C-alpha cells in the first residue's frame, strides 16, 4: 500500500456518463428488437444514441437531497396552511372554483404523465434518454400527489373536489384533458416525447404554472402557490428534456423532420385547445388578476415560443401552421369559453357566475378590441336575466369536436360572430370539428380519432347513466341520471356561484373570523 496516486477528479459530464449510460450494454442473448420493441414503428430513425446530450445531470443522491428539501418545505407549508384555516384567507370563494378545475383536470394528467414517462423510460433504446424519462416519471407522481395533498383540505370544506378521479373518467368537459393525454400515451414513445416533453412542457406549461400560480399567490392561496412553484422547479428539468429530445431526433436523420413537424403542428394545436380552459381561469376565475390571458400568451407563447422556433429553424422546423389562428383567437378565447361554461353550469362540478362591473371594466381594458363589442352585451344581458330570477342554463347538449372534444364554441378565424364548423365523412359516418386544425389532425389519423369516447354521443347512446337505470321508467330525468353517474351532487357542486353553499359557508366562516363569538 505504498503508491498513492492522487485521483483525477472527474468533471460533471464525465462522471454523469459513468453514472448512467455506461451502466447499459448491448444485449446479445436477446435481440435488440425484442428488448426495445417500440423503438422503430413510428418511423423515426436514430443512428447513434451516444449522441444524446443529457439535458440535466442529477444523480440519484443529489436528486433525493434536493427533492427531499423541496418536499419538507412544501409539506410544512401545506400543514401550516391547513391548520390555520388558510382557505379563509383567499380573496373570495369564487377563486376556489379555479382550483376545483385544477384538481379534476390537471392532477389526473400528472398521473398520466407519470405512467407515460415510465413507458418512455422503458421503451427508448438510448440509456441517457431513458434515465431522463424515468426521473420525470417520478417527478410527475410528485406533482399529482402534492396537488392531491394540498387540495385535500379544500375538499373538506368545499364542494366539487370530492370525486376528481371518478369525474376525470366521465364528466363531459373532462374528456378534453383526458383525450389529450390518452392521445399522447397511445402514440409511440417518440411522439409522446414531442407531445408532452416538448409541445406541452416546453411551450405551454409555463402558461399554467407561472402566471396562474403567481395569480394564486396574489389571491392568498399559499397552498396552490407552493405546490405550483414547487412543481415548476421540476418542470425546468422537464422542459430541458423536451428541447433536448427534439434536437436529438432532428440531428439524427433529415428524414425525421417531416414526422416531427407534423407532430409539433398537431400537439401545439392540441395543447392550445386544452389550455383554453386556463385562459378562462385566468381572466374570469381569479378575483385579483395578475395579468390577462392575452398578456401571458404574448410573453410565454409569442415571445418565448417564438425564440424557440427561431432556434429550431436551423433544422428546418417551422412555426406551427396554427400560429396564425392562435394569434387571432387570443382576444376571444377566454370570453367564449367562460360563456360556454356559464351556459352549461348545471352540469359542472364547479360554480360559474357573471363578472361584476369592475371586472368587466378590467376585461374591457385588457381586451379593448373585442370585449365591449362582442362579449359585454351578452354578459350584461345574462346578468340582468339572473337578477330577474332567470339564471340561464342551457338544457341542450352541445355538439363536440371529434378531435379536441370541446363543444363547438369557437368562432371563424376573423369573424367572431359566426361559429366555426367543419365536417368530414369517413367510412360512411359524419364527424364534426371546431377548426381546420382539428380536422387535419383527424385526417392524418382517422382510425385513431373515430375511437374517441365523446361524452355527448355517449349520453345520447344511454351509456352515461348509473348501473341499473331504466330510461323507460315514467318520469325519467336523463340529466339528473347523468349527473348521478358523474357522482355530482346536484345543487351543491354545480350551478350558479351566487348563493351556493360554498358562497354562503365562506361568508359565514369568514364572518366568524372577524368576530369574537
Amino acid at each position, binding site marked *: 500500500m505504498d503508491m498513492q496516486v492522487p485521483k483525477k477528479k472527474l468533471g*460533471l459530464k464525465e462522471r454523469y456518463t459513468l453514472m448512467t449510460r455506461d451502466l447499459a450494454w448491448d444485449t446479445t442473448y436477446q435481440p435488440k428488437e425484442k428488448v426495445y420493441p417500440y423503438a422503430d414503428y413510428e418511423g423515426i430513425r436514430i443512428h447513434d444514441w451516444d449522441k444524446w446530450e443529457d439535458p440535466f445531470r442529477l444523480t440519484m443522491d443529489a436528486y433525493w437531497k434536493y427533492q427531499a428539501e423541496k418536499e419538507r418545505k412544501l409539506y410544512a407549508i401545506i400543514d401550516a396552511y391547513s391548520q390555520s384555516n388558510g382557505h379563509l384567507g383567499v380573496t373570495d370563494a369564487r377563486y376556489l372554483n379555479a382550483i376545483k378545475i385544477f384538481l379534476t383536470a390537471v392532477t389526473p394528467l400528472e398521473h398520466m404523465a407519470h405512467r407515460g414517462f415510465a413507458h418512455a423510460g422503458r421503451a427508448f433504446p438510448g440509456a441517457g434518454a431513458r434515465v431522463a424519462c424515468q426521473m420525470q416519471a417520478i417527478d410527475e407522481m410528485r406533482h399529482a400527489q402534492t396537488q392531491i395533498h394540498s387540495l385535500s383540505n379544500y375538499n373538506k370544506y368545499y364542494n366539487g373536489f370530492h370525486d376528481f378521479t371518478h369525474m376525470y373518467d366521465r364528466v363531459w368537459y373532462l374528456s378534453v384533458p383526458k383525450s389529450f393525454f390518452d392521445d399522447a400515451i397511445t402514440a409511440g414513445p417518440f411522439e409522446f416525447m414531442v407531445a408532452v416533453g416538448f409541445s406541452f412542457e416546453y411551450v405551454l406549461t409555463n402558461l399554467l404554472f*407561472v402566471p396562474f400560480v403567481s395569480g394564486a399567490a396574489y389571491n392568498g392561496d399559499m397552498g396552490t402557490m407552493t405546490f405550483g412553484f414547487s412543481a*415548476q422547479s421540476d418542470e425546468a428539468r422537464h*422542459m*430541458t428534456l423536451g428541447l433536448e429530445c427534439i434536437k436529438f431526433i432532428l440531428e439524427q436523420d433529415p428524414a425525421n423532420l417531416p414526422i416531427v413537424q407534423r407532430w409539433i403542428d398537431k400537439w401545439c394545436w392540441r395543447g392550445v385547445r386544452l389550455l383554453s380552459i386556463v385562459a378562462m381561469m385566468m381572466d374570469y376565475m381569479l378575483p385579483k388578476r395578475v395579468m390577462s390571458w392575452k398578456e401571458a400568451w404574448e410573453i410565454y407563447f409569442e415571445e418565448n415560443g417564438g425564440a424557440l422556433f*427561431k432556434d429550431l429553424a436551423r433544422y428546418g422546423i417551422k412555426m406551427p401552421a396554427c400560429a396564425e389562428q392562435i394569434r387571432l383567437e387570443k382576444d376571444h378565447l377566454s370570453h367564449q369559453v367562460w360563456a360556454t361554461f356559464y351556459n352549461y353550469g348545471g352540469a359542472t362540478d364547479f360554480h360559474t357566475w357573471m363578472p361584476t362591473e369592475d371586472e368587466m371594466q378590467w376585461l374591457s381594458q385588457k381586451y379593448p378590441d373585442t370585449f365591449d363589442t362582442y362579449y359585454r352585451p351578452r354578459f350584461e344581458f345574462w346578468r340582468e336575466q339572473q337578477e330577474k330570477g332567470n339564471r340561464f342554463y342551457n338544457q341542450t347538449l352541445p355538439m363536440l369536436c371529434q378531435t379536441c372534444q370541446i363543444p363547438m364554441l369557437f368562432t371563424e378565424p376573423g369573424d367572431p360572430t359566426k361559429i366555426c364548423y367543419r365536417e368530414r365523412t369517413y367510412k360512411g359516418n359524419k364527424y364534426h370539428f371546431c377548426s381546420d386544425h382539428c380536422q387535419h389532425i383527424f385526417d392524418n389519423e382517422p382510425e385513431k380519432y373515430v375511437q374517441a369516447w365523446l361524452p355527448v354521443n355517449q349520453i345520447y347512446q344511454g351509456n352515461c347513466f348509473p348501473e341499473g337505470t331504466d330510461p323507460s321508467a315514467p318520469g325519467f330525468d336523463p340529466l339528473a341520471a347523468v349527473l348521478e353517474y358523474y357522482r355530482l351532487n346536484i345543487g351543491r357542486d354545480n350551478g350558479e356561484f351566487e348563493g351556493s353553499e360554498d358562497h354562503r359557508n365562506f361568508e359565514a366562516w369568514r364572518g366568524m373570523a372577524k368576530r369574537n363569538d
Partner: protein
Amino acid sequence: MSRVFIALQTNDDTRPIIESILADNPHAVPVESPAMIKIDAEGHLTVKRESISELIGRDFDLQELHTHLISLSGHIDESDDEFTLYWDN
C-alpha cells in the same frame, strides 16, 4: 437576438442568487410578479457559482438552483462552475 429568461421564487434563499445574477449579467432585466421574479436577458444569461458563494459566505452548489427555480427558457450549458442559458439566434 431572442431573449432567455430564468424565473425564481422570491424568498430568503434566492435573494443572493438574484443579486448575483443581476450583477453578473448587466444586460439582464428583472420583472417582478407576486411571489416570483422573472429575469429576462438578451441572448444569454449566466449563473456563476463563485459569485453566489461569495455573497452567501459558503460554497454554493449550482444544483441548489433546482430548489428555487420556477421556469427558464433557452438551451442550457451546465458545468460545475456555471449555468448558462442561451439562444443561438
